[in-house]
């Protein structure tokens, strides 16, 4: 009996080790982003800080990978979120968007934040600093809406 348990545990360890060498690759990180939102527009520093701490890990090229990004299979889920997040909205590519897309994205930001869909619960669990207070939520929503109006006038 004891032997069986030992074998099961051992094989689990072996599988876990193998997992570390397979699976998707980590999305790239780039720190030089001339088309980044922050480089293209002057954003209030409070809003900028909030965007950086609550959104930029998944919605820009400047991802700060946490330690568990090195541990499969958790990392796979993380990579997935980042890929998806960048595809949906990548602040590092802000300057490449046309007027209509910018407005659409800002309206989406306002909606997602207002409804509490973003930042993702998963993310907030591991990044408590990304949990938005009501004030912070309002600040982001107001910023997104007023920036959209600004873009509209351009």
């Amino acid at each position, binding site marked *: 009996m004891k032997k069986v348990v030992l074998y099961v545990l051992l094989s689990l360890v072996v599988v876990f080790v193998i997992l570390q060498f397979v699976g998707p690759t980590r999305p790239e990180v780039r720190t030089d982003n001339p088309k980044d939102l922050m480089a293209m527009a002057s954003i209030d520093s409070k809003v900028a800080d909030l965007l950086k701490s609550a959104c930029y890990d998944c919605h820009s090229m400047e991802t700060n990978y946490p330690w568990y990004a090195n541990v499969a299979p958790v990392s796979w889920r993380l990579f997935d979120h980042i890929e998806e997040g960048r595809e949906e909205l990548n602040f590092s590519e802000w300057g490449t968007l046309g007027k*209509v897309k910018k*407005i*659409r994205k800002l309206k*989406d930001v306002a909606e997602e934040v207002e409804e509490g869909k973003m930042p993702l619960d998963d993310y907030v669990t591991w990044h408590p600093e990304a949990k938005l207070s009501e004030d912070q939520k309002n600040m982001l929503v107001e910023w997104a809406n007023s920036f959209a*109006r600004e873009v*509209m006038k351009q």
Partner: protein
Amino acid sequence: MKNKLTALLCAAGLGLASTGSLKAQEKPQLKVVFAESESQISYPLDVFNIIDSKCYGCHSPQSRNEDSKEALQWIDLQDMEAIELLAIMDEIEEVLEEGKMPPEKIVEKYPHMKLTEEETARLKTWAEATMNGLAE
């Protein structure tokens, strides 16, 4: 000019064909507005017909599907600010591009509800033209 006028219908008119089965008093307010209307959105007749037959069933006040009502209400578009309208039109174009609507389930059940390639292309051209007009 006359052709252009008659071809442009306002969103509220969308209930026209789809409410045929409802009793007269249940019909939503219908109105036909021409190009001079202050509304920032207008529907050429062919676009109107596609929306009416393939989208309006779920995206209208009469719909029994709360999700689709919340996601898009055609009749609300005419009263929207340009900026809101722009965002919605971009979303409509994206949904068309990805072929998400009408939903697969509906199309499985009612194959005739599927948007043909021509219809999708027509709606997309219209959405783009509307957005360009708004963004100017």
